[in-house]
């Protein structure tokens, strides 16, 4: 089975049907919107930060299965972590998805998020996987929105 198909079968069966942390936090103190203008996909993140700690996080949006699963796994992973640790994951996830980080041979903290390495086989879909992470980065930096088309993506 190809990595691309495997990615679908592993993440969709679980996270697409039962996304974790789906919804909007009423008491959020950070929010950000993510857009992929190429496909019209849209995701919104709401977070409650206690100092440096991600106490709560939720996402909502109209997206493809890859983006939804990525957002679901991201929220599950960063909840309870510090902003600094989450930033490390953001960087590593982006590097993995774009092929700069080989999770088989190089050290990383991605754990099960490693399944998204398969998205490299689907170059046109890398942006779908990375959009939630980009949006999380925007939320930390209190920029209201992120887009897949910005230069630093």
């Amino acid at each position, binding site marked *: 089975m*190809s990595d*691309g*198909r495997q990615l*679908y*079968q592993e993440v*969709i069966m679980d996270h*697409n049907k039962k996304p974790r942390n789906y919804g909007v936090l009423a008491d959020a103190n950070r929010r950000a919107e993510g857009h992929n203008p*190429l*496909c*019209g*996909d849209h995701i919104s993140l709401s977070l409650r930060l206690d100092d440096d700690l991600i106490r709560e996080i939720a996402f909502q949006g*109209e*997206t*493809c*299965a*890859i983006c939804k699963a990525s957002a679901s796994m991201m929220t599950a992973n960063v909840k309870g972590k510090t902003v600094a640790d989450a930033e490390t994951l953001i960087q590593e996830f982006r590097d993995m998805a774009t092929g700069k980080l080989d999770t088989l041979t190089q050290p990383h903290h991605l754990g099960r998020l490693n399944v998204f390495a398969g998205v490299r086989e*689907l170059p*046109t*879909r890398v942006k*779908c996987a990375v959009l939630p992470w980009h949006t999380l980065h925007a939320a930390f930096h209190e920029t209201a929105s992120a887009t897949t088309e910005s230069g630093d993506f």
Partner: protein
Amino acid sequence: MTSALLPKQTAAALDVDNIRADFPILQRRVHDLPLVYLDNAASSQMPQAVIERWVHYQQNEHANVHRAVHALSEIATREYEGARDKVARFIHARESREIIFTRGTTDGINLVMHGFGRAFIQQGDEIILSAIEHHSNIVPWQMLCEEKGARLRIIPMNDAGELLLDEYEKLFNTHTKFVALAHVSNALGTVNPVREMIRTAHQHGSPVLIDGAQAAPHMAVDVQELDCDFYAFSGHKMCGPTGIGVLYGKAEWLEKMQPYQGGGDMILSVTFEKTTYNAIPYKFEAGTPPIAAAITLGAAIDYLSNIGMERIAQHEKTLLNYATTQLRQVKGVRLIGTAQEKAAVLSFTLDGIHPHDVGTLLDLEGIAIRAGHHCAQPVMQRFGVPATARASFAFYNTYTEVDALIVGIHKVQKVFA
């Protein structure tokens, strides 16, 4: 998917197997599976004879056109102008000088926006577009409206994706100055009754531009019979190369219009005080044109003409009917665009599955379709979907490929089941 559903072969039917042998790319495999190419509305493939025409030009004929007195320049000019003559015959223009080579449909529409719109549209004027337009036939007019203080009026459509002609008539008033319409919708496949719509516009004194990008590759086009004022289309959607397109314009309009771009070839004389523009069509072809692409488009037109546009249209129609019947039998499919008059475009959604996931999973089966908003976001909004999956057919597609698409869709649904 039984052969009983296949239409009876007639004497005039296409020998698709033979035709497919003309296309090297159709022989290749994708993800180690036979390529099923169903993204023809985005771009079509090129047969060997057309590829060879490009190679022959570069190997034997290349020089700049309309300039030097040497032999190669003369040959290149003759072939380039010969391609213009072929285009003129292909769409039944009165004369070759009504044919302007452009970069593509978008470029042609922008040329009319600049050359006609900026010269003749004024504050308070109105431009009529339809609800099914591609962004390329919306955005240039929006830019013009912003610049001039003019406004857009939009012809609405029904749930099948057909324009409401009664509403269209009601949009005309003394402010109406221009109408821009797709001949065939790229997102829905709707074939608009442009001949009648052009007549209506002319009764109200408005010239009409037709975006023919999705029509010229699939049906016989006669610009004199349509009586359109402008007709734009692209080479790469009709077995030609990218980077070349055609704008037809009635000579009387082209004469009155201002140039689009300034530069070489579009002038008669230049001083720092004043430039005298060249005659049409050269007035609109500033700089060195895409010579090789234009000549190769000429070869593509020869190829299509040898098959015959009527036969192409007939084959695609039977293919569309077969594919529509098959797709309707798949549970959870919603067809977007069910007009009576349709080109071979099937836009659809699958319940609970994002079109991009459909596109990716079909791609893993070797099946190339388009997923997205098809540069027609107002159409998507009208149908309440962010995007659709779209299979679009050409004359080289087969019933077997339709069957592969249906099997592929079942597999996609299984992943999400």
